[in-house]
């Protein structure tokens, strides 16, 4: 039943979306097959290792020997690491399905199809998946240089917000003057977003560089100041008194300058139609590529690595640690501000305290778990976005409370953290040998 309805809806899509779907389905099937293989192999590994230990150490002590010992693992090959990560993620996913099943009574198939429909059910949802993945990915890219330098920028959320705020303000106040020179308007919006983000990042950076102030908390607090600032302006600029909502700016209907400053309608709309997100995807991809080149091939990227490795060594090597710190944080917060601009001018076309939607925090997990690798970060962004969007569908289709998705995403992250452990360490289990005679024989 699932298959036939899926095929039906598939045939109703146009060519472009069919391609997307086909790719998605292939990817998922391959992933599922891998996952099953992984699970089996991993189990076999554990069992054979245990058996091997039994064979090699028949004279193990029995008195008070520690049961579990944690020992650093030898460097694993790439495929082994991948196997472990995917395998444990699958376990987490199975747990996810079980929990939902217990709560709502839905079957596994229903859950899967709802998740699928939530993300691939229509062209709108597919574009939403792509766009949200790339926005999250963009923030994750912003965090790469600072995390590599071991500067914990938890303030991405606030930096996105102020970037969006600046963009909105520019759209609001400069549209009448520049509606005929949109190119200029876009440039100013771009600069505004970046500068606002940098403003939010410069203070924690300065104080960390000069006085060693704890950046985790400083940037964290800046988030809430940003939220309050945005709330303030939302009230100040509200369309209907008392609502706190500013409405859509430069709307299609009812506004003097329809679609001015809207990214989605002013770039490539000839090819992809109005309201497309291709520009967004392109821009984020360009930023990601630039960051990759920056970190890998430039002197500044190298300096970041050294500072992150050991500050003492950086000083010794005549690297100006303060300058590198401030510069890197400025870059990071600028990109966050840029994402804020993309959200306001490219997606929401409005202002609300929720415009960042927690991306600033989620991206931290993405960057960390993706280990600063662009490919992995993109995949993890996709996975998290997938589940997030799927959760909304689960809420409406099988009445699963939307907050549950947060719980389950939390659980998935826990599982990924667990898999990291198994990659780095190996647990040695000492099995008991009971007979005292064996011991006596051994020591003779």
């Amino acid at each position: 039943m699932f298959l036939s309805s899926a095929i039906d809806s598939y045939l109703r899509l146009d060519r472009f979306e069919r391609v997307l779907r086909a790719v998605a389905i292939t990817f998922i099937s391959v992933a599922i097959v891998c996952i099953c293989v992984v699970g089996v192999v991993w189990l076999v590994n554990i069992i054979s290792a245990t058996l091997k230990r039994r064979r090699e150490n028949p004279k193990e002590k029995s008195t008070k020997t520690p049961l579990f010992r944690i020992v650093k693992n030898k460097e694993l090959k790439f495929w082994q690491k991948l196997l472990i990560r995917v395998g444990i993620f699958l376990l987490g996913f199975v747990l996810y399905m079980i929990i939902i099943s217990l709560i709502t009574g839905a079957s596994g198939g229903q859950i899967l199809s709802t998740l699928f429909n939530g993300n691939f059910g229509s062209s709108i949802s597919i574009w939403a998946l792509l766009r949200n993945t790339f926005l999250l990915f963009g923030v994750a890219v912003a965090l790469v240089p600072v995390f590599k330098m071991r500067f914990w920028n938890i303030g991405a959320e606030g930096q996105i917000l102020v970037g969006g705020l600046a963009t909105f303000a520019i759209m609001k106040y400069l549209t009448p003057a520049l509606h005929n020179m949109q190119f200029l308007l876009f440039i100013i919006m771009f600069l505004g977003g970046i500068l606002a983000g940098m403003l939010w990042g410069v203070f924690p950076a300065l104080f960390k560089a000069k006085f060693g102030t704890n950046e985790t908390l400083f940037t964290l607090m800046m988030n809430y100041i940003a939220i309050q600032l945005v709330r303030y302006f939302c009230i100040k600029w509200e369309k209907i008194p008392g609502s706190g909502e500013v409405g859509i700016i430069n709307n299609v209907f009812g506004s003097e300058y329809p679609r001015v400053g809207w990214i989605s309608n002013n770039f490539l709309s000839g090819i992809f139609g109005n309201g497309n997100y291709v520009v967004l995807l392109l821009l984020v991809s360009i930023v990601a590529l630039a960051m990759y080149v920056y970190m890998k091939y430039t002197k500044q990227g190298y300096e970041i690595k050294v500072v992150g490795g050991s500050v003492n060594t950086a000083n010794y090597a005549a690297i100006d640690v303060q300058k590198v710190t401030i510069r890197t944080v400025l870059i990071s917060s600028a990109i966050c501000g840029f994402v804020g601009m993309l959200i306001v001018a490219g997606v929401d076309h409005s202002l609300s305290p929720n415009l960042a939607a927690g991306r600033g925090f989620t991206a931290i997990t993405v960057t960390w778990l993706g280990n600063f690798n662009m490919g992995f970060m993109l995949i993890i962004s996709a996975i998290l976005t997938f589940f997030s969007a799927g959760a909304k569908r689960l809420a409406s289709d099988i009445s699963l409370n939307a907050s549950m998705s947060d719980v389950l995403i939390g659980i998935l992250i826990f599982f990924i953290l667990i898999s990291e452990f198994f990659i780095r360490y190996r647990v040695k289990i000492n099995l008991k040998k009971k007979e005292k005679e064996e011991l006596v024989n051994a020591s003779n």
Partner: protein
Amino acid sequence: MLAIEIFSVSFFAAMILNGITLLFGCIGETITEKAGHLNLGIPGIMYMGGIGAILGAFIYEANATNFNGFLAILCAVFFSVLLSALGGGIYAVLTVSLRANQNVTGLALTTFGMGLANFLGGSLGKLAQGGSGVFVSVKRTSDAFTFFIPWLSERTGLFGELFFNSRYGFLTYIALILAVLVHFFFKKTRVGLNLKAVGENPQASDAAGINVTKYKYVAIMVGSIIAGLGGCYFVMNYLKGVWQHGALGDAGWLAVALVIFSLWRPLRSIWGALLFGALTVAYNYLHASTSQQEILKMLPYLVTIIVLIVTSLNKRREDQPPGSLGLHYFREER
């Protein structure tokens, strides 16, 4: 334009109610940080503690034939402790045994905890109000929490109103006593000294024969439970047992900030908590317009940043954060 009503009793009460919530969270996190772990999951844990209390109260009220205030409180606190322990347990296993990154784990836990609390709150609401309710209310239990020496506040006029306000409930005094106890714990007991050492230098503590893992686990669990009580307190005493989506607001983050503000000293946390509590509710009593309110709500965060800066300029050895805060300890590392 801004009339000042700071000295009205209701402001004082609101300050205490908000402040004590933060105090619970702060004491809990202080213990955890003294052991070397930065738990950014405290906001999530406070939410879990809060919803745990509601859950317990709800279960009791739904099943009790004769309402006994004492048992109601017991039930609520029990579930609150249960859920905060769950949260703390997750954080402990991940960061102590599985050596996961503390920041990432904490943030994931906050997402998880807030989600869980909102989910349970919403579901309970549906249960309570026959499928259409948005919130759940356990007023009777809440009243039980706040029932405390009523005759004292009635008889002693303003003084009684200020210090024995019926809204405070017994937990207020427990928080204050707890803060003092924790202070003495670190200064005057062997176990406290051991814990302080674990947070400063786990290698040395291990060599001295302290079971570092055990101490960390216990510190995290106890810290989480105390912080969770903050959630319970807020929900029962301030919100009068009514749960709404996102009920606790940003209390958890302010509690984390408060730990730094008090330089990991429980006694300083007491007046720091009251200060923060005052700043959090100031906007309500200054007759500001709705938009100006938002600016006022910024104050606690601004103050925290100022403290952060001042603390980092001050380089005294005795004021520095615990030496191993945020770092892992692995004995067989070569």
